[in-house]
């Protein structure tokens, strides 16, 4: 029983931490998110050189074939710097879908380029006014010659403006599938905007847009889709932990340095105790995120665990902590905490966007509360009932 990084994983965290830290000097994120790209090109390059874009991709396709703990270490380090590079949205998540659903040819076509960091792929699942867990309203229709076109609207699609390819969920004859769409295909109308965390996001309309099913024969898309989203919900918690830790560290520094009434804010016990409570929440959330990561690792090793239920439990618990940290970090900074220039505002914004990601915390809680596991006696160890 062990919830710590091994030596290699520690080294990985330190490497990413210092690489991203160099690329993101103070205020670096604001500059990156305001750029045309939406992230920092130099940092992305470094991440790619370190092989991190290939983390979740098999060796056969040019990746590192690493596990959930390596993903955790990498994303926590990114979160620590509030980095905007879309490793999870633009590489990891699509790689899981392609590996789980695609034909060998499709895997060959997309995975090596992703692993190199040469491209990103946007996953288009969310739809306006439609719950994440419902079947998509975007439809796929097939004509006599077997060609497929998509019709409908996806929004928001994160980082769609930079993606070379979209993976779009759609329904064909009552069955949910994932479809590959070239970003430059005919019949796509993209309206770009930004998400609450200042990362780029778009509304994408499909009007008879040519698409190819991402499908090897006999693979059930719904299961793979749900598993990939469950993995993503756990993976994003690593970034959340990094963000929370860093938001708390900024807040503690601010309490020490900012003076009002002639004394540092840290003189006021009411504020200090709130920082202590945040510390407790962050540490508990870190334990939860590590535990969920270890559970995903165990599942990959063949342990019979309900990945989706565990992802929901962890997402709800860590998400509640994220909300608390985001709110308190801004509050304890006063007005400056609300400005685009303040780093802590970016932490808060990103934490906020995370709690609404992949269907959001309210839906995760609804599923968890309705599931039979809600009343099951908790045990963090898999063989200690």
């Amino acid at each position: 029983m062990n919830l710590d990084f091994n030596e290699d994983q520690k080294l990985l965290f330190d490497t990413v931490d210092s690489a991203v830290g160099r690329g993101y000097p103070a205020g670096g994120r604001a500059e990156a998110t305001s750029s045309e790209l939406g992230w920092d090109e130099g940092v992305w390059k470094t991440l790619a050189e370190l092989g991190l874009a290939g983390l979740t991709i098999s060796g056969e396709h040019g990746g590192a074939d690493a596990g959930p703990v390596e993903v955790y270490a990498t994303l926590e380090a990114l979160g620590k710097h509030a980095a905007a590079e879309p490793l999870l949205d633009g590489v990891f998540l699509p790689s899981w879908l392609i590996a789980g659903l695609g034909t060998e040819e499709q895997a060959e076509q997309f995975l090596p380029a992703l692993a190199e960091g040469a491209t990103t792929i946007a996953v288009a699942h969310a739809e306006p006014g439609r719950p994440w867990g419902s079947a998509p309203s975007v439809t796929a229709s097939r004509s006599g010659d077997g060609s497929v076109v998509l019709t409908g609207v996806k929004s928001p699609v994160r980082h769609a403006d930079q993606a070379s390819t979209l993976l779009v969920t759609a329904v064909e004859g009552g069955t949910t599938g994932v479809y590959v769409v070239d970003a430059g295909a005919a019949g796509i109308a993209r309206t770009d905007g930004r998400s609450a965390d200042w990362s780029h996001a778009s509304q994408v309309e499909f009007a008879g847009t040519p698409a190819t099913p991402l499908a090897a024969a006999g693979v059930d898309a719904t299961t793979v889709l749900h598993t990939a989203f469950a993995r993503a919900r756990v993976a994003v918690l690593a970034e959340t932990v990094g963000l929370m830790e860093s938001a708390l560290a900024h807040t503690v520094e601010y309490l020490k340095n900012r003076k009002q009434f002639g004394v540092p804010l840290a003189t006021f016990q009411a504020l200090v105790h709130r920082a202590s409570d945040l510390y407790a929440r962050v540490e508990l959330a870190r334990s939860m995120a590590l535990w969920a990561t270890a559970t995903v690792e165990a599942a990959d090793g063949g342990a019979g665990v309900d990945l989706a239920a565990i992802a929901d439990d962890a997402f709800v618990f860590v998400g509640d902590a994220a909300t608390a940290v985001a709110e308190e970090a801004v509050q304890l900074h006063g007005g400056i905490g609300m400005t685009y220039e303040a780093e802590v505002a970016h932490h808060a914004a990103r934490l906020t966007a995370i709690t609404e990601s992949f269907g959001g915390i309210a839906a995760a809680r609804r599923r968890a509360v309705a599931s039979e596991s809600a009343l099951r006696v908790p045990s963090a160890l898999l063989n200690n009932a």
Partner: protein
Amino acid sequence: MDLELSREDIEFRDGLREVFTREVPEEVRRRNALSRTTRDDIVASQRILNAHGLAVPHWPVEWGGKEWTPTQSHIYASELQRNSVPQPLAFNVSMIGPIIAEFGSEEQKRQFLPATANLDIWWSQGFSEPEAGSDLASLRTTARRDGDSYVLNGQKTWTTLGQYGDWMFVLARTDPDAPRKQQGLSFLLLDMTTPGIERRPIDLVDGSDEVNEFFFDNVRVPAENLVGEENQGWSYAKFLLGNERNGIAQIGTSQRVFADLAETAADIPTETGALADDPQFRTSMHSARTTLLALEATQLRVTGASENGQASPVSSLLKMEGTKALQELSKLRMHASAEDGMLLDAGGPGEDPLRADDAAVVAAAQYLNQRKLSIFGGSNEIQRGVIAKTILGL
């Protein structure tokens, strides 16, 4: 990472379960689950554990300790709680025992340690005073040296189960002129049959009689009952407070309360069905469940961390959040039966009250009693202060 106990750890756990459930009588464990443990239950249980070498595993080996791995210590604390075994008396096994083993004279070790492990001596903790609670070092009870004894004068309060105490370890001021209040305190062992001691019980809000106050009027303590050096008492007291790490969050207890509540919820009727299907109840239980998972994972993370008698700073977090979780569950248990749990202690003096065995009826008293968890052992506010100072540098 690895979320499984090793085969050896499972064998170890099953061995403990065997002793805890076969040897400790069922009725003793049942009363403990209902917070109706008697003095005799505690004594019987500790003696059974001691007979199996399981009462003082974290003492030095020569006095009955086990040199367990951190994982084994964690399993031990957790299994005691999960199986409702009355905990070995903390005053004996977690407080005075380790102090005497570390700082006591050879004579004191021989005289006290075996009897302390077997609960042949019942110890009370004489630290708090009416004017010295969180600010313990400001205590005023004095011990004046007179020939070969100390003369004790003053008052102690909140003494848990002091009505059964054979001996009390007392923190008293031996040097009133010391420059700092932490200096000038000494650690004395007091035989409670000594003349000059008066006890008054304190009634608690839940109806229990678990605490007392004690008055000392020229009580003579032989000088050989000083532990360690004169005026060094504060450092021994701090050693004691840093001693408890496993079990401090009471996760095993919370797991047991959760299990009981989850099971009974199917049989508790609501206007529209069973409590187990009530969305509000399920939401609260889910929240308790995830908190317990996070706490246990935190416990597992620190279990492996270095163990040198120092309190890990994370102990503050575990104590504060663990006891909050248990308090929250006791509140849920009370809400579950609502008014139906409110007929406490019905019956004449000396009679068993109506439904004394019913968890619903016990719930309200338990809820009120468990307010103590965030007050003693360093209140939540004190823990926040420790976190701020030692971890955040605030």
